[in-house]
């Protein structure tokens, strides 16, 4: 089930990426139109299949609000720097098995706080930065591979967040699992 959440921040995005026809939506056409009003709208089917099918459809997009599950929003974030999830996922139904761990449907999607990467991809659910066990950017838990937080931190650094906007990194407690 995907609920619509209208965030203040959504006002700042120039594009809305709509994942259609996702059968999991739980909001009406009317609500949808209200969000998309005045924005460029791109409809891309099944974002949760991964970045490959998207091709260059998102080229030139600077900031995107995403109407999709958390996994779909994270896929968009791999191509666009500034991504705001406009939905809360409460279940997961990700098509691409390699992306199943992207979202567990916490119901409080906050990936815009962490450069479009969900912190729950960390096996220890770290919400405030990498744990002390990270070595050479790799997760301390066997079999996990790259540490998601190092990915987030790198993206933050590249975008001047860490250097100029430390406060962004110092934000606390995102997200709160409501499930």
């Amino acid at each position, binding site marked *: 089930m995907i609920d619509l959440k209208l965030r203040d921040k959504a006002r700042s995005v120039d594009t809305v990426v709509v994942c259609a026809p996702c059968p999991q939506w739980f909001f009406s056409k009317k609500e949808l139109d209200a969000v998309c009003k005045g924005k460029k709208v791109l409809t891309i089917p099944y974002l949760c299949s991964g970045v490959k099918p998207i091709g260059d459809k998102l080229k030139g997009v600077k900031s995107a609000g995403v109407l999709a599950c958390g996994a779909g929003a994270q896929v968009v974030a791999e191509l666009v720097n500034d991504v705001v999830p406009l939905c809360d996922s409460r279940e997961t139904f990700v098509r691409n098995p390699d992306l199943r761990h992207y979202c567990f449907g916490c119901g409080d999607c906050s990936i815009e706080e962490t450069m479009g990467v969900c912190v729950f991809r960390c096996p220890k659910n770290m919400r405030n930065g990498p*744990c002390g066990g990270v070595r050479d950017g790799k997760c301390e*838990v066997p079999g996990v591979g790259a540490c998601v937080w190092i990915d987030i931190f790198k993206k933050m650094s590249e975008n001047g967040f860490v250097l100029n906007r430390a406060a962004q*990194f*110092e934000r606390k407690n995102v997200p709160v699992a409501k499930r």
Partner: protein
Amino acid sequence: MSMLSELLKQKRFVLTAEAAPPRGPDFKLFKHEVAHMPVDAVNVVDIPGALLLPSSLGTSIAVKLESKEPIFQLTCRDRNVLSLQADLISAASFGIENVLSLTGDHPAVGDHPFAKPVFEVDSICLLQIVSQLNKGFALNGSKLNTRTKFFAGAGVSPFASPLEPEVFKIKKKMAAGAQFFQTQVVFGAKEIEQIISLYEKKFKEDVASKIIPGVIMIHDRQLLDVLRKLPGFVIPDKIVKRINSTKKPREEAVQIALEIADELKPLEIGGLHLVHCGNVECLKNAVKALRG
């Protein structure tokens, strides 16, 4: 007021030691050892490395009953926010004041790899919970019959790489209420120096006096072999050689620890955390030498 907080405030060089709870319900020997630890406070570990031991709350109470000041280590691995708060309030009722907030190791690396990892919050959220209890409120805003008086600390990992995020996390931990920091064991001053200088350059404030680095005393060869097999635990060759070639491993272990302490002292750190690996004699000798 916790003694540890007083000593740190007065910039007296504090000495803490680590007390691993015994491997079973017989606490006789443990209590006897704790009673003879000549340090300012005793860290009670919370199922370290996800290897089963008695609970840190129960063991901290045992330490307290021996008239020693415990540092109650609390991890987020095995408890949700209800359980975390319940343990904290219970600890407060026994007069336990020092709390070290940690996220904890993942059960996958421990001796019960099938155990459910909880991790509902992380160490920074836990510090916020402690601060909230100190104001007299539970996480949901309900009022406690009196406020707790916790002196909260957190961990710093000098071996995290990249290191920069760790420096930001120190700042976040302070904002969340951490007033002292303990580190894993180090074998030289390099890593601690790096963290302090990165932090002080970035945030232009003192952190050194809040840091208590860990120093280990590897007092026999068997222990050395066990430690070398631990994932992520790297002992420099020079030290391995010294332990392997000496005829008096205990004296050598203390000597090595004192040399590392000498390297660390010029950094104006808050004190030292001595990991004596169960050998109280070593601890006593090291403390005697350090106290002069």
